[in-house]
């Protein structure tokens, strides 16, 4: 009988010891997504044996190519914060695919940026020169095999010199040769629009406030335009030069998921409506479409 009790006690002790040694997925996941500030100044973050230093890009923005571990939320805390309260006590941060930049949204709705130590000088140099004379496309790449499990990755693609020159030539169109938006087709989904952003030659920084749009007017004659994003200028569509149309067509073919289809007429009229202008007085022919 005593032997049975001893064996039972030993078995229970083994079970208890096993329980203490095993972890759980939830805790492991929380730990994997908790990062730490190196000190109380919050100017540096440790992540995977690297240190990320704060860098303020001013009016510019760093380009994110993709979100590393897109479904995960990372929280940066001080070192003494336990993992179970890291979400409440921590600052939310996103990390790009190359793990070179972190983006943290603060209380004043302005992001704080952290750049990995080895990329810091290059990023700083890009900010200081700030020559934004290139364009890039934020492209959502859908998987070919329709595997819905594969993440839809965003890839930032720097436009080549030919395409850049096409856009620059279009934007150089004199004001009297530009086309008014009323020339565009009237249907619901008549324009195939590709949104481009300006950047430096190394695609490190961009200016969020400045966008360029490639427009293919499927609603009327299939013409190609470049729009400089100026919302309140009626005559702001820059026609693509005849010699450049094939280059633009090839671009559209190369990135089939890049174009969004909608009627850009609504965009202008929506803005005029929201500005409170009286249609009958200033723009008598405009109508707000719902």
């Amino acid at each position: 009988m005593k032997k049975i009790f001893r064996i039972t006690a030993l078995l229970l002790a083994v079970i208890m010891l096993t329980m203490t040694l095993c972890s759980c997925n939830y805790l492991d996941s929380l730990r994997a997504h908790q990062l730490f500030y190196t000190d109380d100044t919050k100017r540096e973050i440790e992540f995977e044996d690297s240190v990320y230093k704060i860098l303020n890009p001013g009016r510019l923005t760093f380009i994110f190519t993709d979100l590393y571990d897109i479904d995960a939320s990372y929280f940066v805390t001080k070192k003494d914060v336990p993992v179970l309260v890291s979400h409440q006590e921590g600052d939310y941060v996103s990390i790009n695919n190359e793990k070179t930049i972190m983006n943290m949204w603060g209380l004043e709705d302005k992001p704080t940026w952290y750049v990995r130590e080895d990329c810091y000088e290059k990023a700083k140099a890009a900010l200081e020169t700030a020559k934004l004379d290139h364009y890039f496309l934020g492209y959502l790449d859908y998987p070919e095999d329709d595997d819905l499990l594969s993440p839809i990755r965003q890839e930032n693609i720097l436009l080549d010199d030919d395409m850049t020159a096409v856009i620059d030539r279009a934007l150089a169109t004199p004001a009297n040769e530009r086309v008014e938006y009323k020339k565009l087709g009237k249907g619901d989904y008549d324009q195939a629009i590709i949104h481009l952003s300006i950047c430096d030659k190394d695609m490190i920084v961009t200016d969020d406030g400045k966008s360029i749009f490639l427009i293919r007017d499927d609603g009327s004659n299939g013409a190609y335009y470049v729009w400089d994003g100026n919302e309140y200028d009626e005559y702001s569509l820059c026609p693509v030069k005849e010699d450049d149309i094939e280059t633009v067509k090839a671009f559209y073919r190369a990135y089939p998921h890049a174009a969004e289809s909608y009627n850009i007429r609504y965009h202008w009229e929506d803005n005029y409506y929201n500005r409170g202008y009286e249609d009958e007085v200033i723009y008598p022919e405009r109508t707000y479409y719902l």
Partner: protein
Amino acid sequence: MVKKLIKYDFQSFIRLLLPVQLILIGIAAINRIIQLFEPANSNVDDLFYYAIGHTGIQSSATVYRTIFVSSIVLYVIAIIVCLLMTVIVSIVRFYQGMYTNEGYLSHTLPVTPAQHIFAKLLSSLIFTLGSLFAVFLSFMVITMGDMNIEIFKAFFYMMGKAFGLYGAHMGLYILEFIILAVVGACFIYFKLYCCISVGQLVQKKKVLLAFGVFFGIYVVKQIIGTIIIITVTMNYELMAEIGDWIAKHGTAFTHILFCSGIVFYALFGLIYFLISKHIMSKKLNLS
């Protein structure tokens, strides 16, 4: 003599409650053992993920999750049963000890009715505390390992933050909370004893009358409470002033809240106690 009363009560409580508490801890242990079989990808929640053919992963994660959730539900039910059993056993011990055949023996002892009531209350409070400790122990078992350590770390961290924020007031809050909990528990038991005492005034259906008294008290309290709330909230100026005052004196308001709760429960607990004592002294009706 009171010590002997408590000793016999303890024996009854232990006989009835200890198995329930051991079963609770056993269920917690089973749940912890189930967690040992957690698959590596059990955090994947996307049903679509499973629907389109990842059946191997689906089956192990789904089976685990089904068993785990079932065991958690069972654990929660066990906690509720344990706590309910404590209250039920307390009531039953009081009723049997005071108002049934056992009452003939109890009331011949050289003990006053007040001492009887306090002896029963003390036993009930001790075993309520014991049941709460059993629940705490079961929680330790169910989170044994890394999670346990992290929970304690998080708790002490938050307490440190609270003390940093409120200073000495936090200590007072804790003290007031403990006093409120004890006074509240006494209030509940005194109320139940009062209902049973009133119930035994009739010849037949004593337990039914006790239930009736309990619900009657509840309904009356709800009506009075509703009238007070409506009267106060209809006075917008008063509400605005109260709101302003609370915003400026949050700490004082919290202390007032705790203290008024303590006073309220103490006062009504005393009333119930006096009713029970009066019935036991003057209106005892042992059949």
